[in-house]
């Protein structure tokens, strides 16, 4: 596998073990260069979230290989893989404590201290100036998701995994968070796997599109080609 790809996977799949064996995902292949965005689309239950969980090993793949910057992720400890692949989930799931403590959580896990000035600068970037000392559990849905994005980026991940990060937000908050993600991805040249229900979002943001149906790849290729079909 050429090291040029920031993220790639071959034959990635997951089958639930007995007593209820079921294929959740099978034979997923894709390659992403640095700064590319892959939109993963498909109906509910098609395996989109499963795919993200396999990429950062929140679940264990039954088959296939994932390469992160040319390294087989199975040769790395899971927490190293997760640190290098930031993930934002459908809900923010902030921890009890201040916003600043939430942002410092990831770096602290691998012995890095993040300064209050750095936290403030990151919060200012996502439009939350002065929020560092706020109680994280009192934020609105949109604010909380902005903190969750900042928290994931505080680890300086090589890849960002987005699992429908705006699906639980109201319309106004959704537009705000989507605009933020779009500017973050473009300005920081982030490599990103973005699970979305919105074809429009995929058309705007993605370089490549992977369409899933019943746990299998229905289509994969450059966004313009896949979305035209």
């Amino acid at each position: 596998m050429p090291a040029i790809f920031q993220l790639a996977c071959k034959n990635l799949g997951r089958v639930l073990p007995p007593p209820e064996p079921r294929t959740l995902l099978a034979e997923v292949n894709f390659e992403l260069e640095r700064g590319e965005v892959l939109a993963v689309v498909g109906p509910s239950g098609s395996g989109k979230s499963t795919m993200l969980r396999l990429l950062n090993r929140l679940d264990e793949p039954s088959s296939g290989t994932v390469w992160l910057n040319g390294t087989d992720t199975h040769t790395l400890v899971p927490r190293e893989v997760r640190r290098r692949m930031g993930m934002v989930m459908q809900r923010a799931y902030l921890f009890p404590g201040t916003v600043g403590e939430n942002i410092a959580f990831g770096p602290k896990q691998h012995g890095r201290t993040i300064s209050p000035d750095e936290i403030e600068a990151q919060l200012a970037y996502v439009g939350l100036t002065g929020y560092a000392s706020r109680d994280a559990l009192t934020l609105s849905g949109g604010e909380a998701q902005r903190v969750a994005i900042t928290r994931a980026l505080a680890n300086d991940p090589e890849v960002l995994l987005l699992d429908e990060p705006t699906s639980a937000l109201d319309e106004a908050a959704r537009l705000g968070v989507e605009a933020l993600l779009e500017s973050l991805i473009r300005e920081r040249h982030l490599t990103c796997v973005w699970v979305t229900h919105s074809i429009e979002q995929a058309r705007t943001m993605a370089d490549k599109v992977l369409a899933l149906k019943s746990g299998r790849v229905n289509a994969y290729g450059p966004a313009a080609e896949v979305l035209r079909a």
Partner: protein
Amino acid sequence: MLSHFFHSQFALGVAECLVAALLALAVMLLARKRAPGLLKELPIAEIRGVAQIVAVGAILAFMLRGPQWTSLLVLTGMMLAAASIVRNRAKQIPRAFLLALTSICVGAGVVLAIMIVFGVIPLKITMLVPVGSMVIANTMNTQSLFLDRLRGEVTSHVGEIESALALGANPDAALLPYLNAAFRACLIPSVDNIRSLGIVWIPGIMAGMVLSGASPLFAALYQFVVLTTIFSASALACFVSSHLVTRRIFTAQEQLVLR
């Protein structure tokens, strides 16, 4: 009143049991609409309870004539039974029997051993078995509370725990707030027992000691000893359990299995 009709101690005991059991049934009959199922369960529970405790009484009567080490066999049997009961309460936690057995053996075993070494609990069957059983039974209850509360905390915070893992936390760090919450919650009853000692309740062992002729002051102090021993054993068992449980609810690849 009963003593007028029953002259042997055994017959009197059976009659007293009947009165207590019928009173409990009468209360449940009065409140039958609140929990109809409980009214059916109660007679079976009463028969089972009296059979078990009479069996223990018979074993104790037999052991009193035997060597001291037999009390260790009884306590070991109690720990096995306690672990089995905890396992039934914590079925969703993989390998819960071994977890509970290790925790109860370390918690109750170490604390009882220390108390025996210091001579606080005499190495006599008549003391070791009743006090040991109280310590083991309460440690079992605390273990059940701990594991049940932890299961509840984990299953209602799956998103937070997986978010912590996704940020590169190890399972211990991801689980820490929920382990702490469960540890604190399961020890509250034991602390409250010590706090309310003498004011809200005068436990059975003190009443028993006074009835058998011990000085009320010594009986009172000994009651404190028993309750704090129970607390120490419960807390130690839960501490051990809190260290062993992480490996059971995460895989070797640090993935959450309890959900």
